[in-house]
């Protein structure tokens, strides 16, 4: 037989895979700029400072939810209860604030974070230790958390007039001309990104999602890693739920309905792979900005509301298709085929 096909004979594919993995975020930025220019040319209202601030504000909370989703996606799992967790956290916090007039800012922050963490831990227990497939487990808790919100609320909403005024005004305050909401969001994404980058836990998160069999052979405790990924996801949803409540003022039982989809869309558009092991929270946050930009641009162009869901869906499908192609390239390049 001729010499076995030399293993070094694929320099092209090797470089391509590496380049693609490294440049995914840059690709999102380029796409964002192109998108912004296109909308700017199509309507002169898009590129105004005021409008861009609006876009950034609406992206701010979604970016945090996308981060939460990304952490779970990296481990090759999924959390479709993101919207329900935000809704439950927001309602319980608002209700507590409304019924306890003397509530301090520390409590207002601590309560949602604790609730979010507990909700995330329940998801984590089911998926990591209960070995329930992530989609099924979180589909269940999605209904469970939302249903609990309905029961608890008796169909009542918490109106903004019942909340402490400082709670509402704090998110609208500006520092150096920028709304606090945007700054908080950037800070949170930056901190999460740094934690994942700098700490060993971040490496384990990617390792478990990258190759589960190798993780087992290596002796990594995948269950623990996945569990904490869900806990982190719940914690971030706590933050997102609180900010959402403060931003809209009036908290209804359907708050953040459908955010599981937008958070997933943001993460995937931002280059987080649904097959695990790849992507960053910064990418996910950028994905949120892309989604907010598309939404805003379509409103300005007076595209009917019905189209927006369709276009969001198309963006997800396109992003997932690209992701699948990349994942296949990686599989092939890592000795996927052996003699």
């Amino acid at each position, binding site marked *: *037989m001729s*010499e*076995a*096909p*030399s*293993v*070094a004979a*694929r320099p092209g*594919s*090797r*470089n391509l*895979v*590496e380049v693609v*993995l*490294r440049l995914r975020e840059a690709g999102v930025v380029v796409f964002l700029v192109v998108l912004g220019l296109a909308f700017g040319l199509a309507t002169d209202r898009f590129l105004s400072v005021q409008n861009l601030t609006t876009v950034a504000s609406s992206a701010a909370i979604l970016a945090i939810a996308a981060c939460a989703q990304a952490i779970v996606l990296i481990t090759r799992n999924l959390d479709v209860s993101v919207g329900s967790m935000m809704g439950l956290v927001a309602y319980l916090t608002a209700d507590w604030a409304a019924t306890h007039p003397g509530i301090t800012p520390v409590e207002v922050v601590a309560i949602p974070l604790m609730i979010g963490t507990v909700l995330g831990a329940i998801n984590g227990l089911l998926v990591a230790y209960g070995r329930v497939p992530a989609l099924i487990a979180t589909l269940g808790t999605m209904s469970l958390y939302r249903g609990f919100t309905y029961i608890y609320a008796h169909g009542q909403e918490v109106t903004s007039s019942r909340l402490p005024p400082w709670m509402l005004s704090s998110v609208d305050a500006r520092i150096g001309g920028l709304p606090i909401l945007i700054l908080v969001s950037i800070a949170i994404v930056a901190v999460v990104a740094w934690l994942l980058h*700098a*700490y*060993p836990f971040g*490496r*384990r998160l*990617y*390792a478990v*999602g*990258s*190759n589960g*069999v*190798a*993780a*087992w*052979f*290596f*002796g*990594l*405790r995948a269950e623990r890693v996945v569990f904490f990924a869900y806990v982190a996801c719940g914690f971030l949803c706590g933050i997102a739920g609180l900010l959402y409540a403060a931003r809209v003022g009036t908290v209804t039982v359907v708050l953040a309905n459908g955010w599981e989809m937008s958070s997933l869309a943001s993460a995937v558009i931002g280059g987080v792979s649904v097959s695990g*092991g*790849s992507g960053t929270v910064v990418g996910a946050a950028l994905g949120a900005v892309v989604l907010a930009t598309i939404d805003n641009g379509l409103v300005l162009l007076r595209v009917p509301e019905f189209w927006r869901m369709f276009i969001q869906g198309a963006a997800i499908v396109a992003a997932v298709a690209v992701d699948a192609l990349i994942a296949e390239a*990686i599989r092939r*390049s*890592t*000795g996927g085929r*052996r*003699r």
Partner: protein
Amino acid sequence: MPTVAAEPVIPAPILLLRRIGKSFGPVRALEDVSFDVRPGRVHGLVGENGAGKSTLVKIITGLEEADEGEVILAGRAVRFRTPIEARNHGIAAVYQDPKLFPHLSIAENIAMGAYPSGWFGTVDRRAMIDTAREHLARVGSDLDPKRTVAGLSVAEHQFVEIARALSSDVRVLILDEPTSALTPTEAERLFAVVRSLRDRGTAIILITHRLEEIEAMCDDVTVLRDRRHVATLPRAEVDRAKLVQLMVGRPLEALFARRERPTIGEDVLRVEHLSLDGVFDDVSFSVRAGEIVGMGGLVGAGRSEIAQTLFGITPPTAGRVVLKGVEVAPQSPKQMLARGLAYLPEDRDRDGLIMPETITHNITLPILDSLSHWTVVDRAGERRLAESASQTYRVLTPSVETIVSALSGGNRQKVAFAKWLATEPVALILDEPTHGIDIGSKAQVHAMVAQLADRGLAVLLISSDLPELLAMSDRILVIAEGALVAEFARDEATQESVMMAAARQRGGKR
């Protein structure tokens, strides 16, 4: 022992295995294995497929726990619960297929589990990259530690894995068939690294199928057979023939009763110059009615791939297949079944049966169309057929409505037989039909195969179990490295000759 001092200096063992035993449920996976591994020496671990080598490695590295016996490392009994613990004690393993994280960088892979920590417990990246570069240099590799693992060649993977093992101050390095996916040049480079590690006092356990590697590399050899320890000897005391004999050394027991002289008819399955690019090349043979043709070879030689190509799972890139005188181009299993060819895959639990379904549903699956009236399945007929098939193939079960996953390995195999034979094939390919089933069921499967051949079926039997192959086959083909390298008539074949042909060195054919 008065002459101890006069012997050449053999270092005291670093790793002692004492009476290691392990069961998986009712199946004995390992029984009474004891040997010593010494620093600065390469210890070969050999045995046929399924002899228990992998289980032993898993026990040493903490992936599985032994049920009996002791592992003693540097004088202390140890019992590792995870590979990380084993690595912290200086035991690491490198497997034949890469076990790295493709999305992470080489440095991150090498440092995994023991990141150099800097400020506030964060990963010290510079130190991580420097250490990685250092360890890569020790294995003679100048790969950039910052590169992602995705895109590395198999050989490069292997070197990164060894570098990772070295990063934990390894005292015992286990290499599980490290060269199976490497070219000869790459393998030579790998062995150069192994020798330099050995010279620096690392104990090496080398698992391999290639006898020439044992001769070239090993100082000691341990042979496992049928999950038991057969012998541990200095390499100098065994030659190839002796090694092969130790590995296969079972007598042809009464269990493997040879078939009476069969009546053999016309060619049923004829294969001419069959090739699948990069997998196997120019394979030609034929199987006649009433004949059992054995196909031997090492794992990974390409036997299952040939069978899967014949069955239409991966269509060939060249060559012809003639079934009962009619040429067919294998395109899909459905088409090949319709032409009268059936295939029992090796991993019947994964590929051959639908585990959470009943025996009935499994048996009738390939022939549902013929059991249906106006597309509605005739349930009574289905059940009747399943019951008679279960009787014919002696499936031990309370009822044909039993879920397949509740059956023993042997009974599952019988269900798989019943399933494919319900299609009434003229030729049957069996891929390791007795792999992982107990001795009693084995004999029944053999009897069944013989019976089928006597009824005029053409049988191609792929087996790594040499005594089985020798006892069952009317002719034996040997596949090595994707090519047909030898053919033996029933009376010429011996365990040794088949094993020798199968273990022939790469490039040594022709």
